[in-house]
């Protein structure tokens, strides 16, 4: 069962990767909520759109977030909301482009990891690109995958 399922998911993922459209188009795709790797896509889309609710929806109510430069974790929906609220307001126009994402499923738990580039605008109109790596520990709640722990850090650091 798990093996056939895995093949199926792989097939979907391959289809998605082969799709010429980027992450921005993921929301329009009919992708199954059972794929934990899609959480990264959902997160990237919500971040790029500045959709705070969309971002919060990705996380488990007890989720723990390690921000990219954060010196401590944010735990729980409220803390995570605060974090993203400040971030989206403080760093407007940031755009996440996933570079690679992979997910491994361990029963009701899955681990998704990958990298993305955070594009944005600096002072004087300068364009910035910050490579970031991430790891998402996903758990299934009520049949849907949510992020239980999210760790972000600079890819080069």
């Amino acid at each position, binding site marked *: 069962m798990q093996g056939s399922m895995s093949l199926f998911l792989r097939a979907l993922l391959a289809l998605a990767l082969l799709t010429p459209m980027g992450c921005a188009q993921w929301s329009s795709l009919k992708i199954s909520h059972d794929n934990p790797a899609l959480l990264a896509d959902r997160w990237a889309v919500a971040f790029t759109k500045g959709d705070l609710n969309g971002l919060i929806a990705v996380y488990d109510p007890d989720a723990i977030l390690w*921000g*990219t*430069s*954060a*010196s*401590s974790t944010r735990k729980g929906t409220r803390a995570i909301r605060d*974090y993203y609220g*400040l*971030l989206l*307001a*403080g*760093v*407007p126009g*940031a755009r996440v482009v996933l570079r690679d994402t992979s997910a491994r499923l361990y029963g009701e738990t899955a681990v998704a990891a990958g990298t993305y580039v*955070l594009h*944005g*605008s*600096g*002072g*004087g109109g*300068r364009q*910035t690109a*910050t490579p970031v790596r991430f790891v998402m520990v996903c758990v299934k709640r009520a049949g849907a995958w949510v992020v239980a722990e999210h760790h972000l850090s*600079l890819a080069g650091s």
Partner: protein
Amino acid sequence: MKPSLPRTRTLQARISGVFLLLIVSMQIAGYAVVRNAIDRNARHHGREELAVGERVLSQLLEEGVLRLTGAAERVADDYLLREALATRDHASMIGALRRHRERTGAEVAMLVGPRGQVLADATSATVRPAEWATRGIPTSTRGDPARGIEVVGEAAIQFVTIPIRSNPPGAWVVLGVRLDARLLSQLALLTSLEVSLGTRASESHWRVLDASGDVQLRSARPASGQGVASSALWEPVAATSEEWERLVVVLRRDPEPEVAVMLERTVARAAVPFDGLQDTLLVLTVVGLVLSAIGSVMIARRVTRPLRELVGAARRIEHGDYGHSAIVPRGDEVGELAAAFDHMRDAIAARERRISDLAYADALTGLPNRALFMDRLEQAVSMAQRTHGRLAVLTIDLDRFKNVNDTLGHPVGDLLLREVAARLRRALERRTDTVARLGGDEFAVLLPMQALDGAQLAARKIADVLSESLTIEGYLIDLGASTGIAVYPEHGEDSDNLMRRADIAMYAAKRAGTGHEAYDARQDQSSSGRLSLLGELRQALEQDQLSLVYQPQLALSGAPERAAEVLLRWNHPKRGLITPDKFVPFAERTGYIKVLTRWVLDGAFRQCADWHDRGLQIGISVNVSARDLHTANFLQSVTDLLQRHTLDATRICLEVTESAVMEDPALALGVLQRLHEIGFRLAIDDFGTGYSSLAYLKRLPVDELKIDKSFVRGLVGDRDDAAIVRATIDLAHDMGLSVTAEGVEDEAVLNALRRLGCDRAQGYFISPPLKSDELEEWFMNARSSRRVAVRLL
């Protein structure tokens, strides 16, 4: 010979000195000009170095700003920092800032808020002061980087601020680097200047923050020129023994404290490139001075060498050496001078010969003159004294020569003297004998190595040659001579005595008519007495040895008049009383009679004026010498004396001898006329001893005749004398003249004169000469009127 000049006063030394002075002055002036130019150039060069240093400093600071700006931009663009800022993650902000600070090498890395508050500070602890947060950081709201310099503690920080893009904006990145020794050393390395970094508050002293090398900020004076636009201020520094120039580049002026970089250099260092040139210049100057000194000495020697030769020639001439030529073979002015000097030498030699001839030769006869004769005589005496030899001196006086001159004229007299000279030369054959003309008709002969016999033989030869008749200008003249002989050592042991005694012998020969006489001591007594009397006469006047005495004159006609003749007396301290006949003739011969006459007139006039002032009407008269009549200023002298004593000339009778009038009648007539016009009474003295006729005397403005005592004394016993006196009195009366008889020595004569109608008489029988007070008493006692006449003789 004059001593040689000190070397410092020689022309050579002066020329050398002037040359050296000029050259030294020029060299010093040239050295000073070049040195000054070098100094100015060095200063200019140094200032250029400082200006270059300022530009390099600006460039370094600008590069620093650019580096900081780039780094700050990267910090501002850092997502992590922006995320940390956005999420208020202070620790992450610090971490990000520290990471950037360490990467860029900056000392200051901060995030500040819109009010300047520090949001995050990762500044190095070495420059983080407590007051850092209290001051605002200049920021730009337009997104451009702001820059500035801030003093933090003991450090000056160059910083930039750049805003972080956020929404809403409200944070700036601050990055700063310390302006430390590295920058200053880099600047010093690039510019070779001493560099200091200083700060000060307001006008206070600069405080050194950092410096290249060991240089400390000198001269804490505030920079002058705070108000100028330029941030660079020139400020000379002289706080140390070394002269410095400083360029103060103000990096921060407002707000305080000021921050400045001091670029400094020593003036000496700026002149270092010219040291070689200065050394070369100094060497050239010294070499030039040495060469100039040598050259000037050589030139001076070349110029003065012919002058020294001329000096030598002049000194030879000074010593009478005219034989050396001073010709200097040169074609320039010195050569001309030498030639002129030679001509001058020849002319001096010729003139000296001429002067010598004139000094020692008689121009008329060519014989040695008195000076040369005396010189030779003295030499001969010296020789005789050394060799115990003998010599003889002959003095010769021509007889009747005056008659020749008077009758035939001086030209004939001169020819006669020449002929006499020629005959004397012929008479004396020895070359050692000297024949000289002493003056007038006096000649002298010196016979060395001759005794009295030889001298007498020579005198006879002289007499023989002169006794021969001479024919001159067609006149046959018989001439004689009188010769006196004096022999050394019998008659004198020196030249003066020999000459004087030869003269005495000559006069003795003339008196005796013997032709020649050798000296005899008996001849000398009267002669020497007369000569010494004449010599002492001057002293007598000065020492009041002369005096006037008055001999009253008795009026025989009964007219009430008082008159007296004053006689001159010489009370010699050794010889006793000397009568005028002993010295007046000599005074007349020497011309001293003028002084004597004036002295007598002055005394007589004073006495007469004194009598008149005291109411005594006593007339006086003065006997005037024949020489006085020939004196040019005699009239003026007499007139002056009248005015001096305020005396009426009519009280004075001037007596002139008959011979004086007849010597030059025309002159005598003129003088007597003038005296008569002035008011003087005039009398002919010693009448009867001359050859004048009464007819001639009638032409003269005389008032009185005085009959000579030689006739008066014979009046009683000699019929001829009586006839002469009688005739004279009668003729005088016929001519309107009064008559005075002199020499009345007895009563018979006096009575005879009274019978003959003589007007006045005087003589010892009447009264001897009296002193002035005695005369006054005599007149008071006498009942008859008298008149006083003054006589010199």
